[in-house]
C-alpha cells in the first residue's frame, strides 16, 4: 500500500512541476466553476421569474373576477399562467430551455392560436449556446483529456528517456499506471468539484448526483483510454493529438451534423404556419357560417352539450367558445402531425447520438435534469391538459347555468392544481408520452 502511495506521490510532484499541466487543470477547474456558477444563477433567475409571474397572475385574475360577472367575459379576460419549473439538476444541464418556451398565459380561446407563442430569450445568445456543466464535460473534457494524455509516451520517447524508464521501472503500473491515475484523478476532481458544490446549493437528489458521477467518470475514462492507447507506440506527440482531435471533431460535429441532415430529410412535418392558418380560417369562417354548422361540429365531439346549443341572439358566448374549440379540432390533425414529427426527430436523434459520445452524454444528462425536448413536449402536453380542464370548468356555466357566483370561481382550475393531480400518475416518458401527446 505504501509502495503504491509512494508512486502516486512521486507522479503528483512531477505533475505539479510541469507548468502546462497545471495550467490545463486550473483552466478546467475555472471553466467548470464558471459553468456551474452561471448555471445556478440562470436557474435562480428562472425560478424568480416564475414566482413573480405567479404573483402578478393572481392579482390580474382577481381584478378580472371583480370586474366581470358573465362566464363569457370572465373566460375571455382571465388568463392563466402555465409554466415548467427548472429541476434541481437543471443548473448543470440548462438544455433546451433557451429554445423551447417554459411559460405561457392561456385563456379559453382556441389553444392552437396560443400554444406556439414563445416568450423566448435573446436569439443571438441562444444561437451561441450557453456554457453549462454538461457542455464542459461532454465537449471540453475530451479535449482536455487529449491534451493531458496524448504525450504520455511520446514525450518520454522524444526526450530519449523512454527505454531507460521502461527497463528500470519495477512494474508497468509503477511507471505508467501511477502517471495515468494521477492525471485522471486530477482532471476528474477539477471537473466534478464545482458540480458537487452546485448540487449542495441546489439540493439535488443524491441518486442523481451518483448517477451523474458514474456517467461522467465512465465518459472521461473512455477518452483517457482512447488517448493512452492511441499514443502508446507513437513518437510524435502532435501527430497523436491531431488524430485524437480529429476523432473528437468527427464525433462532436461531423456525425451529429450528418445525422441532422438525414433526419431532416427523412422526417416530414407540416409547417407550423399551416396549423395556425388552418385554425384561424376555421375560427374566422365560423362568424359567417350558419350557427348550426358550428354547433353540430361542436356537439359531435362534445355530445354532453347537445341539448343546450340553441341560440337566442346572433352573438352568444357559448357559440363563440364552441367555434374556438371547433377551430382547434380542425387544426388537430396538422397539430398532431407536427408534434409527432418533432417526437420522431427526437427519437431518431437518439439513435444518432449512440455514434457520438458527447451528444449521448448531453442527452442522458438533459433527460435526467428534465431540460430536454421531451420535457418541453411534456410541458406542452400539460398545457393542453390544463386547457381542457378550463373548458370543463367554464362550459357548464356557459351552456346551462349562467353567471357563476363568486364562490364558484374558487374552483377555477389553476395550472398548479392540475400538476398536483398529476403527481399520482407515474412519470410519463418515452413512448408513453407519444401516446399521451395524441390526446388533443
Amino acid at each position, binding site marked *: 500500500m505504501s509502495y503504491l502511495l509512494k508512486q502516486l506521490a512521486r507522479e503528483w510532484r512531477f505533475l505539479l512541476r510541469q507548468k*502546462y499541466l497545471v*495550467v*490545463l487543470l486550473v*483552466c478546467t477547474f475555472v471553466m467548470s466553476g*464558471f459553468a456551474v456558477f*452561471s448555471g445556478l444563477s*440562470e436557474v435562480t433567475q428562472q425560478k424568480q*421569474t416564475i414566482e413573480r409571474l405567479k404573483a*402578478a397572475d393572481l392579482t*390580474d385574475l382577481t381584478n378580472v373576477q371583480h370586474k366581470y360577472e358573465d362566464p363569457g367575459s370572465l373566460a375571455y379576460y382571465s388568463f392563466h399562467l402555465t409554466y415548467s419549473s427548472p429541476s434541481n439538476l437543471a443548473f448543470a444541464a440548462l438544455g433546451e430551455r433557451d*429554445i423551447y418556451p417554459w411559460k405561457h*398565459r392561456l385563456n379559453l380561446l382556441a389553444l392552437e*392560436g396560443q400554444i406556439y407563442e*414563445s*416568450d*423566448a*430569450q*435573446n*436569439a*443571438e*445568445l*441562444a*444561437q*451561441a*449556446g450557453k*456554457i453549462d456543466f454538461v*457542455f464542459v464535460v461532454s465537449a*471540453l473534457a475530451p*479535449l482536455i483529456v487529449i*491534451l493531458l494524455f496524448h*504525450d504520455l509516451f511520446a514525450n518520454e520517447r*522524444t526526450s530519449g528517456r523512454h527505454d531507460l524508464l521502461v527497463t528500470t521501472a519495477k512494474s508497468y503500473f509503477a511507471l505508467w499506471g501511477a502517471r495515468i491515475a494521477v492525471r485522471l484523478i486530477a482532471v476528474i476532481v477539477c471537473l466534478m468539484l464545482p458540480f458537487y458544490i452546485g448540487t449542495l446549493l441546489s439540493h439535488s437528489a443524491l441518486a442523481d448526483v451518483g448517477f451523474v458521477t458514474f456517467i461522467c467518470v465512465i465518459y472521461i475514462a473512455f477518452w483517457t483510454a482512447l488517448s493512452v492507447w492511441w499514443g502508446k507506440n507513437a513518437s510524435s*506527440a*502532435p501527430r497523436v493529438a*491531431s488524430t485524437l*482531435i480529429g476523432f473528437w*471533431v468527427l464525433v462532436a*460535429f461531423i456525425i*451529429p*451534423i450528418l*445525422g*441532422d441532415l438525414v*433526419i*431532416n430529410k427523412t422526417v416530414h*412535418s407540416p*409547417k*407550423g*404556419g399551416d396549423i395556425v*392558418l388552418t385554425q*384561424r380560417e376555421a375560427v*374566422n369562417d365560423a362568424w*359567417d357560417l350558419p350557427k348550426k354548422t358550428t354547433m353540430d361540429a361542436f356537439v359531435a365531439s362534445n355530445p354532453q352539450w347537445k341539448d343546450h346549443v340553441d341560440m337566442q*341572439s*346572433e*352573438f352568444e358566448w357559448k357559440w363563440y367558445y364552441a367555434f374556438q374549440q371547433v377551430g382547434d379540432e380542425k387544426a388537430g390533425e396538422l397539430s398532431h402531425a*407536427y408534434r409527432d414529427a418533432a417526437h420522431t*426527430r*427526437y427519437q431518431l436523434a437518439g439513435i444518432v447520438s449512440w455514434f457520438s459520445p*458527447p*451528444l449521448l452524454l448531453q442527452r442522458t444528462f438533459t433527460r435526467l435534469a428534465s431540460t430536454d425536448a421531451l420535457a418541453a413536449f411534456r410541458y406542452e402536453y400539460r398545457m393542453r391538459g390544463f386547457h381542457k380542464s378550463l373548458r370543463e370548468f367554464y362550459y357548464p356555466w356557459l351552456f346551462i347555468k349562467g353567471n357563476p357566483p363568486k364562490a364558484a370561481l374558487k374552483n377555477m382550475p389553476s395550472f398548479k392544481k392540475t400538476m398536483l393531480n398529476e403527481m399520482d400518475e407515474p412519470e410519463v416518458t418515452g413512448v408513453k408520452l407519444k401516446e399521451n401527446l395524441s390526446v388533443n
Partner: protein
Amino acid sequence: MSINNFSKVVIVAKDEWRYWLRSKLAMTVLAIGLVLTVASVIVTAITMMELSHTRHELQATSDKSFVDQPDRHPHRMVHYGHYAFRTPSPLSTLDPGIDAYTGNSIFLEGHRQNSAMFADSRQGTALTKLGSLTPAFIVQTLAPLLLILIGYSGISRERESQTLSYLLSQGTSGATLIAGKGLALLSVVALILTPLTISALFTLGSGEGLLAVASFVLGYALYLIVWVLLILLASSVFSKNSGSFTALAFVWILLCIVMPRVASTTASTAVSSAGKIETDFAVKAELRKLGDGHNTNDPAFKQFKQSLLNKYNVSSIDELPVNFRGLVASESEAKLTSVLNKFAEQRMQAELKQTQVSRYFGWVSPMVAIRSLSMIVVGTSIETHHRFLRETEQLRFDFVQGLNKVHVEKLSYQDDMNRNADTAATQKARVSAQNWQILQDFTFNVDSSKARAQRSIPAFLQLLLWIAVLLGGIKFVGRRLL
C-alpha cells in the same frame, strides 16, 4: 522589402508547400477542410433558398387570403388579422445566424403585438447544438483548427531538426523565414476562402450590395489572418513542436469553443431582460387606463365623445355623420399602439444591450468578433430581427387603422349597433370585400448594405487590433529566433 527579399519569402513559402505535399497529415487535413467548406456552402445555400422560397410563397398566400375574404364587418377583419413572414437576406446562404432561433412568422391582429412563432430550432433534433454545417461555423471554428494542424510546426520544426541555425546563418533573416511560412499559410487561407467568396459574389445577382459582400469576405480574411499570425507566433516562441501544438490547441479551445459561450452566458447574467409575458402585465396595467376599444361606454372615452359632439355640432352620437364605434376603435388602437410600442422598444433595447455585452468579448476572442461581424454584415443578427418586428408592427398598425377607417366611413352607426339583433341585421352590418384591398404587399428587406457595414465597424476594429498586437509580437520574437 526589396525584390530580392520578396523572392526569398516566396522560396520559403514554396518549400513549405513542398513539405505539406509530402506529409500525409497535412494533405488529409487540407482535403477535409476544403470538402467541408464546399459542402457547407452548397448545403446551406440550398436550405436557405428553399426557406426563402417557402416564405415568399406563404406570404403571397397570406396576402391573397386576406384580400379574398368575403363581405364582413370591418372589425372582424381586424381580428382575422394577417401573417407576415421574414424572408432571409441573400447573403444568409453563408451565415443563417439567428434565423432558426427566432420565429420566422408573426401573426398581426388588432389590439395585440404577438411574438414571432415557429422557430425552426424547436423542430430540430438538438444534434447541431455544438455545430452546424454552415459555412459560418466551418470557417469560424474548424478552419482555425485545420490551420493549426497544418502550420503548428512551421518554425519549431526547423528548430527541432536543427535546420534553423543553418538557415539563419545562410543569410535568411528571421523576418523572411516567418514571412515565407506566413505566405504559405495565407495561400491556404485563400484556398479556404475561395468557395466562400464565389458564393458571396453570387448573391450580388440576387440584389445584395457590393459593400456587404466585400465586408463579409474581408472580415473572414482578417479573421483567418489572425489565426495565421497566432500560429506563426506560437511556432516561433516554442522550442519544440509539441509545445507549439499543445499551446495552439489550447488557445483554439479557449477562443473558439469556450469564449463564445462564456460571452453569451455572461451577457444574459449581466443584463437581465424581462420576458414578454412579464412586461405584458405592465402593459396591461397601462392599457387599463386607456379603456376598452370595444366598449364605447367605457368612461375613458367620455372626453373623446364630447370633443366629437362639439366638433360636428350635434347633441348625440346617433346624429354624428360618421360611425362613433369605428372612431373609438381607431382612437383606442392608436393610443394602445403607442403604449405597446413603448414597451416593445424597451424590450428590444434590453436585448440589444445584452447582445452588446456579448460582443465586447470580441476584444478577447477573434471568434466572437467574426461571429458578430458575420451575422451583422449578412443581416441575420438580432438587429435584423428587431427591424422585422418594427416593420411588421407598422404593417399591423396600417392595416388595422385602414380597416377602422372603413368602419368609420362605410358602416352606419345604427346598422353597427343593431348587428346582433337578427340574421338580417348581421348581414346589413357588413362592408364590401373590396375594402380589404387596403392591405399593402409586405416584403421584408434587411437594412441597406451600407448600414450593415457601418454596424460591423467595431468588430472590424477588434480583428484589426488582434492583428496589430500579433504583428508586434512576431516582430519582437522574429529578431530572437535562435
